[in-house]
């Protein structure tokens, strides 16, 4: 188990990590979701030993890692830009770690050939071993980077936005393959990404990194259904966050008022944020009232293939997004600038009281 305990790291005045603690169980796929600049690369670099924390400890199976030089940590790192050795062939890139590592290098040429071959088959690079790394495609380079790390059998593999440099088609395929490879090798993957779909799809457990600390650490489904804070909900890119105050147990903002899913004892005037899923909103004519509905002006729609994303603006300026899936009946088109009533079931909203400032 990899454990970070109250790890902090700052660069000048910017705080990258702020007393971050997390425990990554062995043999699991953990994805870390964070916006750019949230400190996710710093997190990986500290675990790998390329950087040291200002405070806090990193332990792996109860042994301290911080202070140990990176080449003695036995932690693999897959870089976003692959960082292959440009002067070596694909096969030599993969054999590199086995040949030259400080601890227990493999000297038997036959064994190296065997292990390189095995891993080449595992990641699907058959027939490319003698190619130069400049003569293969982006997806193949990604596999070389992965194979080069996996062949040395590290205790944990850190992946820094490993799919960021690939095009969408390839990204989906690599997602499946990564999960598959990990399950076969029984090694822990810690996968950092800025994409919520990638994080939810890949991770057995998803950690949301926000403001330099882990905002939530939970299985993907739990995370999506029950975000613990408005911050987490924002990262999932599936919730509208409405901010307002409490008024006799109901949510109230300058432009809307509706009941909360459970009666709350919060006092009147307590600031509250409410998360409302994009795909749980029904757009109705303005005339049809209702207890839980937002009045908002239609701005524009985006057609994304399988769904339509529509943007509305409420009177107080807050933006509301509505997703209509195209599996159902074709959604009607809305008139620009027209006011609509956005209805929803209050039981499906998620209120947050803390940090709702």
């Amino acid at each position, binding site marked *: 188990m990899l454990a970070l305990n109250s790890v902090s790291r700052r660069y000048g005045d910017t705080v990258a990590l702020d007393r971050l603690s997390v425990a990554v169980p062995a043999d699991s796929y953990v994805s870390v979701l964070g916006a750019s600049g949230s400190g996710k690369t710093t997190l990986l670099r500290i675990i*790998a*030993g*390329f950087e040291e924390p200002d405070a806090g400890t990193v332990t792996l199976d109860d042994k301290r890692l911080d202070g140990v*030089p*990176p*080449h*003695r*940590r*036995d*932690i*693999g*790192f897959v*870089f*976003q*830009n*692959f*960082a*292959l*050795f*440009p*002067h070596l062939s694909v096969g030599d890139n993969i054999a*590199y*770690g086995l040949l*030259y*590592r*400080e*601890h227990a290098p493999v000297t038997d040429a036959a064994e190296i050939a065997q292990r390189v071959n095995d891993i080449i088959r595992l990641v699907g690079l058959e027939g490319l071993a003698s190619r*130069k*790394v*400049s003569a293969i495609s*982006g997806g193949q*380079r990604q596999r070389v*980077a992965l194979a*080069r*790390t996996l062949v*040395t059998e*590290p205790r944990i593999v850190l992946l820094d936005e490993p799919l960021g*440099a690939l095009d969408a088609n390839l990204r989906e395929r690599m997602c499946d393959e990564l999960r598959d490879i990990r399950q076969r090798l029984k090694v822990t993957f810690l996968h950092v990404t800025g994409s919520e779909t990638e994080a939810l799809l890949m991770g057995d457990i998803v950690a949301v990194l926000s403001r330099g600390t882990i905002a939530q650490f939970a299985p993907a489904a739990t995370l999506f259904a029950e975000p613990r804070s408005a911050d987490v909900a924002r990262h999932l890119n599936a919730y509208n966050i409405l901010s307002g105050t409490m008024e006799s147990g109901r949510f109230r903002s300058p432009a809307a008022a509706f009941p909360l899913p459970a009666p709350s004892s919060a006092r009147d005037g307590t600031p509250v944020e409410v998360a409302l899923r994009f795909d749980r909103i029904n757009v109705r004519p303005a005339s049809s009232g209702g207890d839980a509905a937002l009045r908002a002006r239609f701005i524009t729609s985006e057609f994304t293939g399988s769904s339509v994303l529509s943007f509305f603006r409420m009177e107080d300026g807050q933006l509301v997004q509505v997703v209509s899936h195209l599996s159902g009946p074709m959604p009607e088109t809305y008139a620009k600038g027209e006011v609509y009533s956005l209805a929803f079931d209050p039981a499906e909203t998620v209120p947050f009281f803390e940090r709702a400032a």
Partner: protein
Amino acid sequence: MESRVLKPVLAVYCAAFILFLYGPMIVLAILSFQGAGGGPQFPIIEWSTYWYRHLLGLTPPGRITQLPIGDSLVRSLTLAFMTTVVSTVLGVMTAQGFRTRFKGSGVVFYLVILGMIVPGVLVGLGMALFSNMAGIARAWWGTAFVLHVVYTFPFAFLVMLAIFNRFDRSVEEASLSLGVSPAQTFRRVTFPMIFPGVLSAMLFSFTLSYDEFSRTLFTSGRELTLPLTIYGTFSVEIYPNIFAFGVLTTLFSFTLLAIYAFLMLRAVRKGQAFKGQEAEA
């Protein structure tokens, strides 16, 4: 409109540049084929390779003594080689040191660069005075060698600094993360990748040291280097044998350049992947 004026002007400028660059060398090369009785100027009384044979001691002894350059040539080559090795090693190490910011790096940078900026004659003179005071004998392999290093090291350093500037550190980190020690990482990854730069640094150091004059003048002691010896012969009387030598030494320099170009081409071809990867990142 602009190019109608600009282009001819640039063409003339370029032609003049080439003329002044190669003109002296061409004149020198032509005069080196002067006949036995001719002097170091036009007209050519007779085309021959007499002065080349004279240079190599293949002509019957006559009034004009053979150019005394054998020993000093060996000295200069040895000195240039020593300087190349030391300056390049220092240059690579210093540039490597500058990859991480450290306190006082600005001061150190200008201290190093000072070596190529300060006037050579002054440094040479200063070194001569200093060695006299300290009781150190002046020699081409001692006092002159130190000054050659001080002079060429900044060039090697600047070349390597430029190379490291666009070096992708993640490749080294990848090596470390595979359990390979920093020393091995340098040997297996860093060095092969910076090798074209190392070659350039070596070329700079060698050529600068090989024909260094002002710093060597006061510091080489009794045994002279090649540029000093050649200059010494001027003070007696000039014969075309010095031109013949000039041609030979130019050919030698071109050979060095050709070797450099060959090695460079090979290294660049090997490292092409690096560029591709950079462009994609």
